C-alpha cells in the first residue's frame, strides 16, 4: 500500500496544485463541487459501480451519500480537536448525540418536554419550538457541553483527557436512556422536525424518501465549513494550536495561553459535532440512545487519524472511506467491526502519519522517527 502512496506522491499533485494559476484552481474546485452535487444521479456505467444500491440488499445511494457528508462534518470538527490542537477526544459521539437530541427534545411534538410546555402554557397539540430556533439551541447546547467538559479536564495531562471524554460519551448516552421525562428513555423520540421548505408532490420538501435533498443540504453546509475551517487553520488561533501541539511548554514561554486555545478547539469541535448530530437526527426523524454508542466515537477518531490528522482533506478522505466501504460491502456486515479493527492496526503501523497527512504534520513525524532511530543507535 505504501508503494501506491509513494507512486501517488511521485505525481507531485500538491506541487502542481500550488503552482497552478488561480483560475485553474478555481475551475477545478468548481468542477469537483459540481460533480459532488451530481453524485446522487450518477449512472454512467463504469462509474456507477461505486453506487451502493446495485444489489437487492444494498442501501439507498443518496442516503449513504448523506451519511458520508454528515460524518465528513464530524471529521472536520474532530480534526480541529485532534489534528490541529492535538487533543484526543474519545467522547465526540456525546456532542453528536446532544445535537441530535436537542432538536428532537425541543422540536418534536412527541417529546415529553414539548408536551409539558404545551399543557403548561395551554398551547395547541401541534405546537413545538420552530426548527429555525432548534438550530441555535442545538449548537448552543453542544458548545456549552464542550466548555463544561473541557474546562476541568483540559488542564490535565493528555492521556486523562482521553479517558474522561470516553466517560463523557457514555454518560450522555446513559442520561438520555434513563431520563424518561425529558428524552423519553430507551424508546427514543419520534417526529424530529425537518427544515422547512416548499411542499412538492404533496410531501414536505425534506422528507424520508427524497434523500438527495438532504444530501445537497448537508453538502452545502460541509463546503461552507471546510472553507471556514481552512481560514481558522491559518489564523492566529490556528498557529497557536500548532504551537501547543508541537511543544506546549515552549508555546507557553512564547506567550501562547495553552488552556485558552485548547478550550477554543474543544468548543469549536463540540459545535461542529452538534451540528452534524442535528442533521442526522433531523434526517432520521427519530433519535434513540442506542444510535450513539461509544463505538461511534472510535469510528470518528479513526476517520481523522487514518485520513491524516491535521489535514482537512485527509480527514475527509478518512470519513469517506470508513463510511462508504462498509456500506458498499454490506453483504459482509458481520465482518465489518473485525475488518475495521484490522485496518486500524495495519494502517497505523504502516503509516502512523495517516494516508494523506498535512505537510507540516508529516515533517513532525519524520523528525520523531529520526529521533527514535538516533536514540536506538546511541544505545
Amino acid at each position, binding site marked *: 500500500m505504501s508503494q501506491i502512496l509513494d507512486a501517488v506522491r511521485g505525481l507531485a499533485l500538491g506541487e502542481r496544485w500550488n503552482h497552478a494559476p488561480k483560475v485553474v484552481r478555481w475551475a477545478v474546485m468548481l468542477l469537483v463541487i459540481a460533480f459532488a452535487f451530481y453524485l446522487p444521479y450518477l449512472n454512467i456505467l463504469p462509474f456507477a459501480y461505486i453506487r451502493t444500491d446495485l444489489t437487492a440488499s444494498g442501501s439507498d445511494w443518496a442516503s449513504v451519500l448523506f451519511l458520508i457528508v454528515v460524518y465528513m462534518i464530524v471529521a472536520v470538527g474532530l480534526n480541529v480537536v*485532534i489534528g490541529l490542537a*492535538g487533543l*484526543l477526544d474519545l467522547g465526540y459521539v456525546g456532542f453528536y448525540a446532544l445535537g441530535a437530541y436537542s432538536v428532537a427534545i425541543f422540536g418534536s411534538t412527541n417529546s415529553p418536554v414539548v408536551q409539558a410546555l404545551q399543557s403548561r402554557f395551554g398551547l395547541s397539540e401541534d405546537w413545538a419550538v420552530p426548527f429555525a430556533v432548534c438550530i441555535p439551541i442545538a449548537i448552543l447546547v453542544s458548545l456549552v457541553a464542550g466548555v463544561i467538559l473541557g474546562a*476541568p*479536564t483540559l488542564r*490535565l*495531562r*493528555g*492521556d*486523562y483527557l*482521553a*479517558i*474522561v471524554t*470516553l*466517560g*463523557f460519551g*457514555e*454518560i450522555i448516552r*446513559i*442520561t438520555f*436512556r*434513563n431520563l424518561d421525562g425529558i428524552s423519553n428513555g430507551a424508546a427514543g423520540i419520534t417526529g424530529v422536525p425537518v427544515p422547512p421548505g416548499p411542499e412538492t408532490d404533496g410531501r414536505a420538501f425534506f422528507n424520508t424518501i427524497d434523500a438527495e435533498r438532504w444530501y445537497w443540504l448537508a453538502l452545502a453546509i460541509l463546503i461552507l465549513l471546510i472553507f471556514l475551517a481552512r481560514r481558522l487553520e491559518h489564523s492566529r488561533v490556528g498557529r497557536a494550536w500548532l504551537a501547543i501541539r508541537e511543544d506546549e511548554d515552549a508555546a507557553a514561554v512564547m506567550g501562547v495561553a495553552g488552556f485558552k486555545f485548547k478550550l477554543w478547539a474543544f468548543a469549536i469541535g463540540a459545535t461542529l459535532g452538534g451540528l452534524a448530530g442535528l442533521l442526522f437526527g433531523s434526517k432520521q426523524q427519530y433519535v434513540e440512545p442506542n444510535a450513539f454508542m*461509544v463505538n461511534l466515537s*472510535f469510528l470518528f*477518531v*479513526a476517520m481523522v*487519524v487514518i485520513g491524516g*490528522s491535521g489535514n482537512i482533506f485527509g480527514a475527509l478522505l478518512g470519513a469517506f472511506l470508513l463510511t462508504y466501504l462498509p456500506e458498499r460491502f454490506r453483504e459482509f456486515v*458481520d*465482518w465489518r*467491526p*473485525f475488518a*475495521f*479493527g*484490522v*485496518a*486500524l*492496526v495495519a494502517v*497505523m*503501523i504502516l503509516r*502512523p502519519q495517516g494516508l494523506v497527512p498535512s505537510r507540516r504534520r508529516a515533517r513532525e*513525524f519524520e523528525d*520523531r*522517527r*529520526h*529521533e*527514535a*532511530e538516533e*536514540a*536506538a543507535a546511541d*544505545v
Partner: protein
Amino acid sequence: MDFDALISGLDRHTLDGITRGSIYALVALGYTMVYGVMKLINFAHSEVFMVGTWTVLGVYTAIGATSGSGLAMVIGATLLALIAAMLASAGTALAVERIAYRPLRKKGAPALIFLITGIGCSMVLVEVFGQVLRVFFGRPFGRVTVNIPAVLETKTVFTIPGVDLAVSNTRILIIVGAIVMMLALDAFVNRSRLGRGVRAVAQDPDTASLMGVNQERVIMLVFVLGGAMAGVAALLYTVQYDITKFDIGFIIGLKAFTAAVLGGIGNLRGALVGGLFLGIVEVYASAVWDSSWTNVYAFVVLVVVLMFRPTGILGESLGKARA
C-alpha cells in the same frame, strides 16, 4: 434518594463493594504497570481480561467440570482454570505489545497513535470471540451472553455475628485471592531483581538502559505481569458472576482504568486502594440512588478526583515506590 436502604444494608453493600472492587483492582494493575513504564494507556487490556474469562470456560468444558462436582474436581478445575487463564491473558497481552506497540515504538510515533492501535487490537479481539470463532466453531462463541458452570458452588461459610452478614466461600476466594496476588506482585516489583529493573525504567528509561537494564525485556515483563493479573481477575469474575460475553471487557476495563487513576496511576498499591474505593462507591451510590446510573457514578467520581487531586489518592509512583 434512599439512604435507609444504604444504612440498613450497609454490611451487605460493603461486602458487595469489596468483591467488585477486588476485581477492578486486579485489572487495574495491568493498566497501572504499563502506564508506569511506558506512559501509555493500553486500551486492549480490557480484552486481555475478556480472553481470560473465555479460557476459564474452555478449561471447564475440556475437563468436564460442572456445578456439583466432587471436591477434588472443584479444586483441580479451579486451579487449572486459574493457570490457563493467567497464561492465556499474559500471552494475549504480549501479543498485543508485539503487534500493536513495538513497531510504533521503533518509529517513535506520538502517543495518540498507540491509543489508536490499542483500540484497533481491542476491536479485533472482541470480534474474534464475537464473530470469527463463531463462524468456525459455532456456539458458544458469538454476540450473546454465555453461562459458565458454577464449578465452585456458592455456600455460606460463616456468618458475622451481630450484623448477621453471611459470608460465602466465593467471596472469601475473591477477596483473599485478589489481595494475595497484589501482595505477591508488590513484593516482586519492590524486592526482586527484575522488579528493580521495572522500577528503574519507570523512573528514567534512558538512565536505566545506561545501567544495563534491557528496556524491551522490561516492557515485555510488564505486559506479562499485567496480563497474568487480568487472568486472575477473569477467574475470580467467573467465580462470582458465572458468565462471559464477547464485549464483557469494555465496561470492566473502563472501571479498572478509572480505579487505576483514582489510586494514582503507575502506583501498584494505588490500584488496590482505587479499585476498592470505586467498587464501594458504586455499590453505595446504586443503593442510595438508582442502579441504572452505576456507570455514571464511576465517571463522576473520576472527574471529581482528577479535578482536586490529579495524581490520584496515593500519587503516581511506580518508580519512586521504594528505590
